[in-house]
């Protein structure tokens, strides 16, 4: 169950970053540069994944 949740979180992070990157490239043109862009994308991916992990609702133990 925990593994499935992690996979789901990775997928959600991926989708969020994928749909954010085009907008980011338009509003932050430096992100188009191949020196900065990939790092930014992967950083964003990791950041979103961490945020999801932290904010993911947990089952309360009785």
């Amino acid at each position, binding site marked *: 169950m925990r593994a499935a949740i992690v996979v789901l979180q990775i997928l959600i992070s991926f*989708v969020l970053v*994928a749909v954010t*990157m*085009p*907008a980011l490239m338009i509003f932050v043109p430096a992100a188009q540069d191949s020196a900065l*862009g*990939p790092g930014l*994308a992967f950083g964003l991916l990791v950041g979103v994944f961490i945020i999801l992990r932290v904010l993911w609702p947990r089952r309360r133990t009785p």
Partner: protein
Amino acid sequence: MNVPTLMIALQCGFAGGVSVPASPASSAAPTLVQQIKDPSSGLEVRVFVGGKADVSIEVGDRSVQIQKQLVRGAAVTHLTTSTERLTLTVTGRQATLDGTLGRVVASSAQPGSREALRSRLKRSSAVNRAIALLGRLDLGPRSPLGHALLATRVMLLTETGDERGAGEMSRWVQNAQQALAVTPVAYQQMLPGDCWNEYAKEAIATWKELEDCLRDVKWYEILEELACGTIYDLRAIGAFSWYLKCTAIRS
């Protein structure tokens, strides 16, 4: 106008009327469909379609003009020099030479006719010049036009009894096979920077498409907005997937 004059006028008119329908078909001007310059000799090769021949290929220089035609299944070769004018017509059954060297019809049914044609062609300066000119052409192993002209040279060599023609055709086939074998089929190698540049282009195009899509959509047109957003999402996800795959470590 008296009666004899009227009759003559009618006969002329009738003759003209009969001859007119036949003239457009026979005198339809051939259309130039291809014109290329041979890289090795610098000679211009022209291909015509229509007219009296199905296909006509023309090439020449100051010494000789060659016109190869396909006319209803027959290969007709016209050779013209300042002193000679020959037409060699080859069909499945016979070869006919006509022109300034006289007329010779050669077929397997007529013993000795092949030798007569061969000796006549050997003496011809137009044939020798044509063979030399066609030997200077090199349109490459992938050119159908080059193959047609080589076939003409081989045909002339064979008809004059020269055995080099078969070897030349064999070499052409070998070159064509090698040219096909070395065709690059591998994927283009891309560096990670190239992957990002390609992804950036696609991502920007995706955003521009979203902007264009939403430009004329009113605030209450929810379905249109949803469609634009869905297209954008799918395209953006696809582009980012492609980028990850492009930069993936491969064995």
